[in-house]
């Protein structure tokens, strides 16, 4: 079982839980499906907190973990980011390299004209 898969499962646990969970809670919830070591769950939770995906709070002696944002919020952020620099700004922000930017209708028209067998029209 890779750490990446485990992270997803742990996040699913946190998302579906009504309240912040302790490592023991998460371990128990995961244990229903498969065998994972308690320390592994702890490591994964710490990693998630370090990445900012989960939030760690202290309640007395126990560390409580919760998802820092809902799944929908994270999905929205990811999609906005993935689509965000498609287009003219592509060259400005080299964080992601897109296969092709978004073209305006006029550009699309030109592309179609070029595709329909008249590449000579291109400059």
């Amino acid at each position: 079982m890779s750490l990446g898969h485990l992270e997803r499962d742990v996040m699913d646990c946190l998302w579906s839980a009504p309240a912040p969970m302790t490592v023991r809670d998460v371990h128990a919830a995961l244990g229903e499906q498969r065998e994972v070591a308690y320390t592994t769950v702890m490591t994964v939770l710490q990693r998630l907190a370090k990445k900012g995906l989960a939030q760690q709070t202290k309640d007395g002696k126990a560390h409580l973990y919760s998802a820092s944002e809902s799944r929908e919020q994270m999905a929205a952020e990811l999609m906005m980011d993935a689509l965000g620099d498609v287009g003219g700004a592509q060259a400005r922000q080299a964080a992601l390299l897109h296969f092709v930017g978004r073209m305006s209708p006029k550009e699309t028209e030109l592309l179609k004209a070029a595709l329909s067998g008249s590449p000579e029209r291109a400059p």
Partner: protein
Amino acid sequence: MSTPAWLWLLAITLTWPVPVLLARARRLLTVPRAAVVLWQAVAVAALLAVFGASLATIQALVIGLFVRNSAGGPGLRDIDPTGVMHLTIAVGLLLLTALALVKLNYVGIQVARRLRRHRRRHRDLVDLLARTGIGDESTSPEDVRVLESGERAYAYCLPGRDARVIISDAALRDLTPEQVAAVIEHERAHLRARHDLLLEFFTVLYEAAGRRAGTEAALEQSAVLVELLADDAARRLYGPQPLIAALATMGSSTPLESPAAPKSSPVVGRSDSSAPDVEGLTEVTALGVLPRLQRLVDAPVSIAPRGLAAAVYSLAVALIAVPTVALALPWLLNTYESVR
């Protein structure tokens, strides 16, 4: 002309007219690999010329002061107003040069941090939310992630350590398996050749130099050139047709924002052309779609215009070598002699 004057002339030429003219040279797009090298050579030569010119000017001013002083006898009282002015200019220039160096480094670090932070966050989210693998193949590639994102067909790569290629499920739906493979190969070519580092270099110059026309041309052209190179890598394996089809499908899919206000670059915007058709063409060129299409349709990978590539490579070498040998070396030797 004196060494500082030559270096200033070189610095000005390389930072403004040369990049702007190179950006207009369409023939360069037929030799993308050599053109990328040339753009880097122009950038390095411009940096060397700017800093070399500053240092040479400072040195000339200070040496002049020193000679005048020892000829007129010691003591500050003997310095004439011209000497004071020269010293002031030299100190001012030294401060400016130091400031420019600091700014370049600062912007470099800023850009690097910004990009890496952005990519790390994006990768964390992708690993959490995107699914691995294409379709139900058990042999699906390890580095490819599929993002569920409604109707938009797109693909991109996330460079750096632990690189990823991301493709939307709409793209998987709209493209044939061969087209998908070609697109993934295109993105992997970006990752293999670390095109992100090249773009990062030009982004730093662009932001450090105050977003001027020269650095903007360099950034935009290098962005187009790396697309041409990635296309070349992909069509070596799959031929041009899958890429052309993928460009058409993904480039023209439903726009997210209002298409009434297409983002066009300032460089394009400035060249206000009266003919609407020509204007349209420059817009496409700015995005790099038309040069890509043209290369995919017209130019087989195997037949590169060898003469042109060789000439461009030679030009790149000359840009670095000639000023060094003709200006910097004699100047250094002279300085050494006069100090001794």
